[in-house]
């Protein structure tokens, strides 16, 4: 699925614009390239052990890894970009779709699961009308299910842009999301 998404990113211009969130020749694109350059040149070329920290730094800056970043990192580290992509998809941390303005993480750890987090996740999916791992069309919300946030005492928990919502019930969800929606 992810591979399909990626090939779409590479060949389909519409998809590329959608996923990268910017036009190829716009000002934004050029500024993105300069930032990318700056990050990449902090690292020594050709050193394999710097691959993951480099990808992490890029993701920290842009919120996700786009096609451009993966190609450039491959050139810099001297590794085929297919391999870079393969490694990036192996780890849970890396995303390939732009984050929403509000990034929602629903905890699906054991303790949260016992307190009904699967229902919470379904409810968020229903309210936002997206699936886990996706971003809403208007780019406001993105949803991610994480394995444990270590807040087992206050289960079930959800994290929106770093802010924790604890001891949630199904009825709370729509209100919480509405609050964020109206705060924009």
């Amino acid at each position: 699925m992810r591979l399909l998404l990626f090939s779409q990113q590479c060949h389909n211009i519409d998809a590329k614009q959608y996923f990268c969130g910017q036009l190829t020749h716009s000002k934004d694109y050029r500024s993105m390239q300069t930032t990318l350059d700056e990050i990449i040149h902090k690292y020594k070329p050709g050193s394999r052990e710097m691959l993951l920290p480099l990808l992490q730094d890029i993701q920290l800056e842009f919120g996700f890894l786009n096609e451009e970043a993966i190609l450039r990192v491959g050139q810099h580290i001297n590794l085929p970009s297919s391999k870079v992509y393969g490694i990036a998809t192996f780890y849970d941390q890396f995303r390939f779709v732009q984050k929403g303005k509000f990034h929602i993480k629903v905890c699906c750890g054991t303790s949260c699961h016992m307190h009904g987090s699967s229902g919470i996740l379904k409810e968020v999916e229903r309210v936002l009308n997206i699936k886990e791992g996706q971003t809403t069309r208007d780019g406001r919300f993105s949803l991610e299910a994480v394995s444990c946030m270590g807040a087992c005492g206050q289960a079930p928990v959800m994290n929106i842009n770093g802010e924790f919502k604890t001891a949630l019930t199904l009825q709370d969800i729509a209100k919480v999301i509405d609050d964020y929606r109206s705060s924009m």
Partner: protein
Amino acid sequence: MQEMDEKQFLIDKVLSAKANLDQKDTSELLSLMRHDTVNKPVVYIGSGTCGKVASADETLEAIKRYLQEKNQEAEIVQVGCIGLCSFEPIMDIQLPGKARISFRNVTQEKVEPLLDDIFNSEVPYELILGQFKSARHNAWDKVPFMNELPVFKLQHRIVLANCGICNPDSLTDYIARGGYQTYLKCIRNYTPEKICGIVEQSGLRGRGGGGYPTGEKWLTAHNVVSDQKYLVCNAAESDPGAFMDRAVIEGDPHLLLEGIAIASFAIGATKAYIYVMDEYSQAYFMLDQALSQLKEYGLTGYNIFDSGIDFKITLVRGPGAFVCGEETALINSIEGKRGMPKPKPPFPAIEGLFGKPTVVNNVETLANIPYILRHGPSRFNEIGIPEARGTKVFAVSGKAMITGLVEVPMGTKIRDIIFKIIGGVKDGKDFKAVQIGGPSGSCLPENQLDLTVGYESLWNEGAILGSGGMIVMDEDTCMVDIAKFFMNFLQKESCGKCIPCREGTRRIHEILENITRRPTGESGFEVLERFKGIMQLADLAEVIRDTSLCGLGQTAPNPLMSAMKWFREEFEEHVFDRKCKAGVCKELRLFYIDVDKCTGCVACLRKCPVNAIVGQPRQPHFIIEEKCIGCGICFDVCKFVAVKLK
């Protein structure tokens, strides 16, 4: 200026072992530095991740506001987690000459009345947790001592001794408590062989789950001749429901760093790596800060305290994969490859990171090292049982009365942990099972609770100690659902190298999905497939266990096998009766409408997605069971509680 003096004093006198620490002025200065005696009031606030989730930041703001408004002079110290996560935010107050007193659930609106009372020497009893025993201070009246509370009474804290008590931001605090003096004693007076010997004598075994004797591992790496050796600290704690390592890092980072420094010296490594999960942003920040402090004091770098020893610690942000808890996978991940395990031998102690001898130790293992070397191996050896010495930290969560961290001596009964220390199951529900050892651990029923904490004692019963997650389950938990949950987690996290693990875990998850799915419209062939799957479940589990390369695969069938062993009737109920007693498996729920209560409002009839409800307005409705998919919408929309579970 004062900071500078403190630093110089600690470096010149304490760390260089030139001053007599028992001298009165020196010992008084040290006790001030570790906040043992205070000149002005000190407010401590639990600011670990669990505290922050429970809005400790707002409480902190409220405290600052209060102190400013009332013009009250006081110092605020942010401490880590003391291990009582369900009581967060926890606030401690220490007045000059008085014992330190601790309050629970101090949300921001409670700050003002509480501080008002305390500064007028009154005790608000309803929020009280306890007071710390100290010979130097006057105790508060009618306030229980912390170490006499049932939660702490049976615990023996070595790793967590200072978590939530000391100031994790401050290196002076740690040195004033006797920190890094053990490390310097080691590099000045001991040979690496001697340290390996001491650790071996102490009987310390790896706390990450494998249980390999630490001293032996170190000696192997020490005996290999190589120009470069590495020590790797495994802080890739990604088990859902385990947060011991994070608490240690956030609460007492220097304890871990001292352990790493000693271990590196013992094996002859000049470089150490700490592999921390990237999600643990606070833990990463604490370590980063602690490392820059060490550099300032000259405790890392070249020629440490003129001993001729060079030592450097590097932090690595782990990008999140459960399998990276396995040592060879972790090494691959540091090298910038996919985190996939490699066959052993060669063991990492002989050929590890970048092909050099590498020792990989867990956070908890390394945090035990300073204690062993400070007090000698015999003192550590007295704790625990012959097969396992020392203590074990457990992260207790789930439906437990108190969620948090518990450190008990090896050999403690699991029953004692659950019923004596954490106070049993919350909301007065019945205990059903406890899951030990993270996602690949086992579920133990009530009659197995007399098992003791240890390595072999649990292995013999098909359970594992694992890294120390302990999840308490009550009667509302469905064991099939729990097994399905763990299998889903493991099939997602399987790295994909060994086919039995990659495909097998997925098949097991599918089979479990099948038996929790509603049989509506199932053809004869599908029923046959379902039963065939169930019959092959045990064989499949055995194949995965026997043919996988790493610990993840070998232990992957554990949650399923233990649940099937101890809760067989529950599985049979799901398979044959198509019923879930706990009501967790949503698709197996059967509803009926109570004709006496139904007013015929047609709310359920309109909402039913499959038109399984029939009836006329103002007449009682009925549910057609064959059509019903068990979604529960009618149950939720009915205002008259007429829709009921069968």
